């Protein structure tokens, strides 16, 4: 990204040439990878507009750079499907706040990327459009739910991409595909125009091959928005400058519960090697403990599905997308539209959420999960209040698994979010950054977690790791 920025600025490369190169690469490679579900028919016109801005000196750091957008974030006049049949044919009439701000900065929207249906999944296999394949090994998943965005950036189809992260949906696919994936603090980026899944957890995030690219995207998207009351009015920060600050004097904690059973040996070694690198660059490394970690996944699946069951009530066949032919009354119309329009994983989560919220079970499940969530949040805030600046953990317990390996077992799929979901429950920012390659030749991701609104620390730490562990792209994708 940094190199592309320089070439655009020096007019060695025009935005139109860059966009065409991306589109040609998509044409050549995406039949195999299936990372895009729809291209923006106006991409070249947007690039031409960016070139005019650059020529007249009105360009900014992102002007002319192509961005791929996850298919649950609205881009005006381009269909939003959320990879669900129920939204087939739905075209939003406005941009999400995040995409609107990036357009103002002059980016070119390349197209919409594949995802798990309504972001419910960890492998992009629940998409109604079919699974995305991992560029490092095409018989492996790209991760999820933002698997299309991660694969597109990994394969060089787009230099930058947007995703959404409710329980790890940016960080886990970034780890599986060997790219950088940022999940900002809850409240840092407006969720207006992001189709809601778990409203107290959802946050729009960024993918790039380099930490600086994620910092540039966040710098443009962050900040208060009257369209989202949960979006914080706090000042945003010097995200790009923070990439060069180093880690001297920072205290980095390794939570021991994140290095226990279930963690692949190669992942463990790679993340510890990243810790050693942070130490060489002047950070102090310290073992810490987050004893409630084992309760994070049960808490997450109760909170997220309860919110989903309520958020997805709006898809009723009347207001958006598909409507089942119905011969009965309006209730029949709702039921048959929803039964046909949603896929199995969405049924499962709506049912679990409905159960957790229903009379007689509310206190035992949803109420209990909310109280445990508060304790999890306090565990993190106590560590940060005790002088820890960053936590370093694995982003996922293993490298990318095989297509079909976990689709028959929802619970084992849920457990692939074990290191990421806690961060959403606590509302914290985190970044996934490549730290090595495992024995199967698959990328490994490390995760840095910072205090709320501490994204600058993430960029400083991740940049140090990136300089030591930069991955060469998989050989079949090199130019």
């Amino acid at each position, binding site marked *: 990204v940094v190199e592309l920025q320089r070439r655009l600025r020096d007019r060695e490369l025009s935005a139109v040439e860059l966009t065409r190169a991306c589109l040609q690469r998509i044409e050549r490679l995406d039949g195999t990878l299936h990372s895009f579900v729809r291209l923006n028919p106006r991409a070249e016109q947007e690039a031409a507009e960016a070139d005019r801005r650059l020529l007249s000196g009105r360009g900014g750091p992102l002007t002319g750079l192509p961005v791929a957008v996850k298919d649950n974030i609205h881009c005006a006049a381009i269909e939003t499907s959320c990879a669900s049949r129920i939204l087939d044919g739905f075209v939003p009439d406005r941009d999400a706040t995040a995409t609107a701000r990036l357009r103002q900065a002059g980016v070119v929207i390349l197209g919409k990327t594949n995802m798990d249906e309504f972001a419910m999944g960890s492998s992009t296999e629940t998409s109604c459009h079919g699974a995305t394949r991992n560029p490092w090994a095409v018989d492996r998943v790209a991760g999820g739910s933002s698997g299309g965005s991660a694969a597109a950036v990994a394969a060089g189809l787009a230099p930058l991409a947007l995703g959404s992260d409710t329980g790890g949906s940016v960080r886990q696919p970034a780890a599986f595909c060997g790219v950088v994936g940022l999940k900002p603090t*809850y*409240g840092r980026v407006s969720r207006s125009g992001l189709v809601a899944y778990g409203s*107290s957890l959802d946050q729009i995030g960024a993918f790039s091959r380099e930490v600086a690219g994620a910092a540039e995207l966040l710098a443009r998207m962050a900040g*208060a928005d*009257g*369209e989202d*009351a*949960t*979006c*914080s*009015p706090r000042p945003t920060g010097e995200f790009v400058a923070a990439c060069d600050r180093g880690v001297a004097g920072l205290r980095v904690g390794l939570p021991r519960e994140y290095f226990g059973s279930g963690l692949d040996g190669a992942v463990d070694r790679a993340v510890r090697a990243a810790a050693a690198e942070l130490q060489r660059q002047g950070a102090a490394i310290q073992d810490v403990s987050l004893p*409630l970690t*084992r*309760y994070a996944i*049960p*808490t997450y*699946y*109760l909170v997220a599905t309860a919110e989903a*069951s309520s958020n997805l*009530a709006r898809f*009723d066949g*009347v*207001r958006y997308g598909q*409507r089942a032919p*119905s011969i009965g*009354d*309006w*209730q029949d*119309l*709702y*039921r048959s539209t*929803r*039964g*046909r329009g*949603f896929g*199995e994983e969405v*049924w*499962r989560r*709506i*049912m*679990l959420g*409905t*159960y957790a919220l*229903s009379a007689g*079970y509310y206190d*035992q*499940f949803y109420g*209990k*999960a*909310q*109280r*445990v969530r*508060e*304790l999890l*949040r*306090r565990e993190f805030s106590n560590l940060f209040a005790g002088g820890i600046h960053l936590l370093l953990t694995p982003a996922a317990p293993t490298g990318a698994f095989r297509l079909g390996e976990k689709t028959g077992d*929802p*619970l084992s799929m*849920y457990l692939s979010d074990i290191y990421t979901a806690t961060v959403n429950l606590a*509302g914290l920012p985190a970044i996934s950054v490549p730290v090595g390659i495992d024995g199967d030749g698959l990328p490994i991701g490390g995760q840095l977690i910072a205090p709320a609104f501490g994204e600058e620390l993430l960029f400083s730490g991740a940049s140090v790791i990136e300089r030591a562990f930069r991955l060469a792209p998989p050989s079949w994708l090199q130019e």
Partner: protein
Amino acid sequence: MVRIDLEEVRRMAKLAALELEPQALEALRTDLQRILDYVSLLAEVETGAALPSEPVQPPVPLRPDEPRVPRSRSEYFFKVPRVI
């Protein structure tokens, strides 16, 4: 441990407004039972007086209450199916 039977699954499907085939309901019963067994792990946690806090700390900004130009009927209205 909670046990979830087919009748309960049907009741949830009705509450969630999902029309599902009998085999789908049976498969959901099996999955929900496994998931509920797993999430019941939370019962071990002594939560005491912990109360859930809001995800965003106040002050929560509100947008200024200014009138905006409404969109025209033809642009914004849509047809619903006849239900009565």
